[in-house]
Every structure is written in structure tokens, then in C-alpha cells.
């Protein structure tokens, strides 16, 4: 019984972390049809921003939830102005350029922080479920993911910016026709997407150690989750993260973490073969 609860929590945690690591990529992809392959490195930089800030004496929650998203968002802004801006509408070129950026940032982080694994302790103590101890931080991640989804949903539904964003997602020329400069919308979107990546990296940093190449572990998963999710931003994110997270954990508990990862990847291939438009291309059509 206790074990069932533990497994359930681990599953929720897996889903939540998939949502977190994919959110930034999903926003940028959903709004701009740009696949940011430097997404993983944005997360890595979020992690480093957190650790650096904590080492400078900043409260860990402030560092994770405010400083890291801001820092990475600003980096994203610079990247957008210098590189991405010139490549809109050229899907494959943006993929290649952001891939280059990802290598660049890995190199840069290596030169600045070195290649030694760094990390910080999780700020939340573990606690017991029956006879089992589990990592209390898992709950923090689950909560952050839920808040993130609710936040995104309410911004999209209830604010003016959200309205423009929804318009831009449906038809990119719509916002322009309404008198909003697409240039500024893209800038803002990329900032938000990068900030979300930074947040994810920051929140996950205490759990796993950080090296400049850490981002590589996330990008493939995020990429798969977003593409498999399909056109709807939030429904897609939620459904595909839910599907992959559960598949992953079932096989992880039944066999081993590696098989869990492989199961996730195989599920992705099968899913895309059956639903080439992603989950929400078939179901939940037209939802957010």
C-alpha cells in the first residue's frame, strides 16, 4: 500500500518534471514555430544562475523562482535579437542555429564554471509515507508544475497579452493585422520561453548535479514531449507529459531506469507514427 503511494508520487513527479522541462520549448514552438535546440542549455544556465546566486548568499527560493528566470530570460532576449530574429519562418535554419548556440553555451559555461559537477542541497527535507522515506522536493516540483500550468492558462485566457498570444498562435499574421508588431510579440515570447526554461533548470538543479553538458539530457525529452503534444499548448503539454511520464515510470519500476527511458522513446516513435499531428492534433482540437 505504502509502495503504491510512493510509486504514484514518483509518477506524478515524472509527469511534473516533463511539464517543467518542456514548458519553455512549448511556448516558443507554439507561438513562433521555432524549435529552440538550445533549450537544454537555457535550463543549464538557469541552474548555474541559481547556484551562483545561492553561493552569493541569496535565499534559494528567490534564486530559483525569480533570479534564474530573469537571468535566462534576458539571455534569451539577447539571443533572439542577435540570432533568431534573422531566421523567422526558416524552421530548419533556426533549429541548426540554436543547435550551434547550444554548443556555444556549453563551451562558454565550461570556460566559466569548469566541468566539475556542482550542486546545492534541496531546501525541503524528506518525509515518510508509511515505512517509506521520499524526497520532499518531489512535491515542490509537482506544485511548481501545477502552478505553472494554471498560471499559463489564466494568462492566456484572462489577459490582453494572452489574447494576442492566442491570436498569434492561430494565425501569425492576425496579430499584425490587429496592429501589434510581430517583432515585439516574438521578442516577448522568446523572453517568456527562455525564462520558463531558466525556471525549470533552476528548480531541477538541487535534485541533479549540474555540469555544462547537463542540458543535453533534457532537450531530447522536451523536444519529444512538445512535438508529441501537438498544436494545443497547454492540453498538448499536459497530455503528452502525462502519457510519457506514466509510461516511463511504469517501466522504471518494473524493470530499470534505462528501460524506462527506452520505453519513453519507443512510445514516442509509436505515438508519432500513429498520430503524426501529435496528441492534440487528433484530440482536444482547438483547445488551448
Amino acid at each position, binding site marked *: 500500500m505504502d509502495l503504491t503511494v510512493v510509486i504514484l508520487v514518483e509518477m506524478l513527479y515524472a509527469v511534473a518534471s516533463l511539464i517543467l522541462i518542456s514548458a519553455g520549448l512549448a511556448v516558443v514552438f507554439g507561438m513562433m514555430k521555432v524549435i529552440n535546440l538550445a533549450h537544454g542549455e537555457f535550463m543549464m544556465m538557469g541552474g548555474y544562475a541559481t547556484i551562483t546566486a545561492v553561493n552569493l548568499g541569496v535565499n534559494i527560493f528567490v534564486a530559483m523562482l525569480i533570479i534564474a528566470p530573469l537571468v535566462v530570460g534576458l539571455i534569451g532576449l539577447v539571443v533572439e535579437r542577435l540570432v533568431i530574429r534573422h531566421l523567422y519562418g526558416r524552421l530548419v535554419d533556426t533549429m541548426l542555429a540554436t543547435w550551434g548556440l547550444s554548443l556555444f553555451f556549453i563551451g562558454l559555461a565550461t570556460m566559466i564554471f569548469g566541468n*566539475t559537477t556542482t550542486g546545492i542541497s534541496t531546501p525541503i527535507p524528506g518525509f515518510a509515507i508509511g515505512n517509506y522515506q521520499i524526497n*520532499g522536493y518531489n512535491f515542490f516540483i509537482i506544485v511548481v508544475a501545477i502552478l505553472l500550468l494554471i498560471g499559463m492558462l489564466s494568462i492566456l485566457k484572462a489577459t490582453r497579452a494572452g489574447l494576442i498570444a492566442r491570436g498569434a498562435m492561430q494565425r501569425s499574421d492576425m496579430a499584425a493585422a490587429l496592429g501589434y508588431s510581430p517583432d515585439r510579440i516574438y521578442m516577448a515570447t522568446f523572453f517568456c520561453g527562455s525564462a520558463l526554461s531558466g525556471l525549470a533548470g533552476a528548480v531541477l538543479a538541487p535534485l541533479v548535479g549540474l555540469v555544462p553538458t547537463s542540458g543535453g539530457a533534457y532537450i531530447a525529452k522536451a523536444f519529444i514531449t512538445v512535438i508529441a503534444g501537438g498544436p494545443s499548448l497547454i492540453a498538448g503539454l499536459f497530455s503528452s507529459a502525462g502519457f510519457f511520464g506514466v509510461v516511463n515510470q511504469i517501466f522504471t519500476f518494473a524493470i530499470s531506469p*534505462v528501460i524506462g527511458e527506452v520505453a519513453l522513446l519507443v512510445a514516442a516513435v509509436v505515438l508519432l507514427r500513429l498520430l503524426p499531428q501529435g496528441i492534440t492534433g487528433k484530440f482536444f482540437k482547438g483547445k488551448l
Partner: protein
Amino acid sequence: MSLNRRKFFASTAALAGASMLPRAVMAADTIKLGSILDTSGIFDAYGKPMDMAARLAVDEINAAGGLLGKQVEVVAYDTQSDMALYSQYGQQLTRQDQVDVVHGGILSASREAIRQTMRKTRTPYFYNVLYEGGVCDRNIFINGVTPAQQVEALVPYAMGKSGKKVYILAADYNYGQITARWIQKFVADNGGETVGVDFFPLDVSDFGSTIAKIQSVGPDLVIAPLVGGAHLSFFRQWAAAGMKDRIPLASTTLGVGNEHKVLTPEEGNGIMVAYNYSQELDTPANNAFKEKWADAYGDSNLIHEIAVSNYQGVMTWAEAVRQAGSMDRDALIAALESGLSIDGPAGKITVDPKTHHAVLDVHIMEIEDQGMKVIETLPQRQPIDTQAVCDLSANPDDNTQYEIEI
């Protein structure tokens, strides 16, 4: 930016120019020591200090007048934590640079990638890293700690402090696979029981499900031969789940790359390990070594187990060259097989003629406040695991890595 780039191109051009010089120009008035280590990439926490140690040793040798009246020149390649580059640079060192000796290799995978090349080209090879044991090859000399020296000492101590049921979490490559089998053997020898073994590829960093699984089995002790930065998160997550005070941990690798300095005291304290070296060894030799290191590099904090092994390896080789009085490979091997020993920062190291492994001191330690506190010192342990299967004086042509069968 543009300045940097220009500088970079200039240096590239210079490099290209240098590598195009005919080899004859660089006359053989120096002795060439090839070094092949991951000084960048995910294993550079191991490789960088090893590289520093090798250079420190060579500087020391040169300052004392060199070897056979010649200066020693380091020819170093950075393998960038890419196993494929080992074979490439290994060939480069032996065929093109024609070095006199090669020190290097970190992961067992990298050693196996170059060992045959060294053997084929008859270049003496020193592998100065703690490893899984069993390599039997007349061309290679190994001064790292083997399971019989380390695990055999660590297991009974750790089981004595915890209990009989042991769970093993190992890195999924030859080191972890073989070491896990040694642990199982020694657990059984000490009347214990292995209740679970899990292997993790080097890029696994999420151990949540594993921690739950361990609890459902309920061992008394967890032994973790985990390797590299990603695996370090196990120790973090273990502590974060509040498991540290429930089930004690031991490791055969934690601290080899100074990982215990990355973990906080709360995460690291109490983990049991056993190595040849610790920065906390309070011996005159170690204190002098730390001072030398600090003089050269400003700070002695980076020194770790295999950096010291590398230093001792270079020193062992230098001593053998002096005794042999020539750079001839067979004379060198003969000198090494004479039971040669040196006194290094970690104490006395003697070459075992039968196996080309080392007889050395092993310290059982516990991690305490980001240091390794010595609990017990076991002097001059023999590599009996390899001795049981390898006898190079009887079979000089042997070229195998023996694996333990259980």
C-alpha cells in the same frame, strides 16, 4: 569578441605550423613522456588534476637534472571525455610522436581503447587509476587500487557498522560490472547477503525510483560504485529523501575525483570509503606534496586519489629509468620487475613483478565535513585478486583482462 577570435586563429595557425614541421627538427635530445587524459568534457574533474600532477612530477624530475642527462618533455593530448579520441591520440602518440612512455587513461573504457596500441608499438604504458583489477599484460604497469585492496577492506568494515544485507548500485560499464561482482564475493565471504544489484549508465541522474525500490527491499547497507557527475546526484537525492540516517552508505569511487568536496557535509558525512590517498593524511610526505602543489598551482584543494596515483606513476617510471640506465623498453621493464619501490605522498608503492600492479597502503575512511577522515590504515596490501589469475613471469605473453566469476 573579434580580438578573441583573432587570437584564436593566430594560435591555430601556429599550431598547424608546428605540426607540419618535419619530425627530424625536434631532435631526440629529450625524453618524451606521452600523457593522454580527459582534461575537458564530463570527466575533467578526474583528468585536470591528473594532468597537473603529471606536470608537477615532470617539473620536479627536470629540476633535479632530468633523466639520463636529458630533460623530460611532456606530449599531452586532451581526449575531451570522448572514448573514440583515445584510440586516435593513442596512435598519434606512439606512431607519430614516438614517445618513450605513455601515462594516462582514466576510465577503464579508455584504457582498453589504447592498451593494445601501446602493446603493438612496444611503448611502455602506465595506467595510474583505481580500477576493477585483472589486467594482465607485460607492457602495462598499474598502480591504482584494485578490489582486493579496497573492497576486501571496505566491505567488512562497512558491514560491521551496519548489517548483513547489502544493496549494490553500480555504474554500468566494465568497472562497475566487475567491481559489483567483487563486492558480492566479499559480502558473501563475510557472511552477508546481496539483496539487490542495479546498474546505471553514466548519464542517469534521476534516482527517485531507485531510492523507493531500495526501501522496498530494505537492506542494511548500500554500496555504490557510481562514477561521474551525473551519478553524484544519487548521494544528493539519497540525503534529500532523508535516507542517510536510515541506511548507511559506502562507496568505492566517491571522492576519487574529490566529489565529497561538492557534496555538502549533510549529504556526505558518514559515507564510508577506502583509498590509497586522502588529503587529510597527516604524513610528512603528504604535507610536503601539498605544499609543492600549492606552490605550483596556488591551492592544493584539487589533489585527489588518482592525481596522486598519476604523480606516483610518473615517479615510479622515472626511478625505473634511472635504475635501468637506458630508455630501452626491456631494460625498463626489467628494472620495474626488480621489485622497485618509491615513497610517494600516499606512502610506499612497490611494483609487484608478477602482475605489474602495485603493493600499497589502503586507508579506511569516512567522509567528514568535506574531508576524508582516516579510520584505519592497512599497510602494504597486495593485489591478490590479480595475483590469483596473472603471473607475467610465468606467462610473459599474456594479454587478457581476467574477470571474476561468481
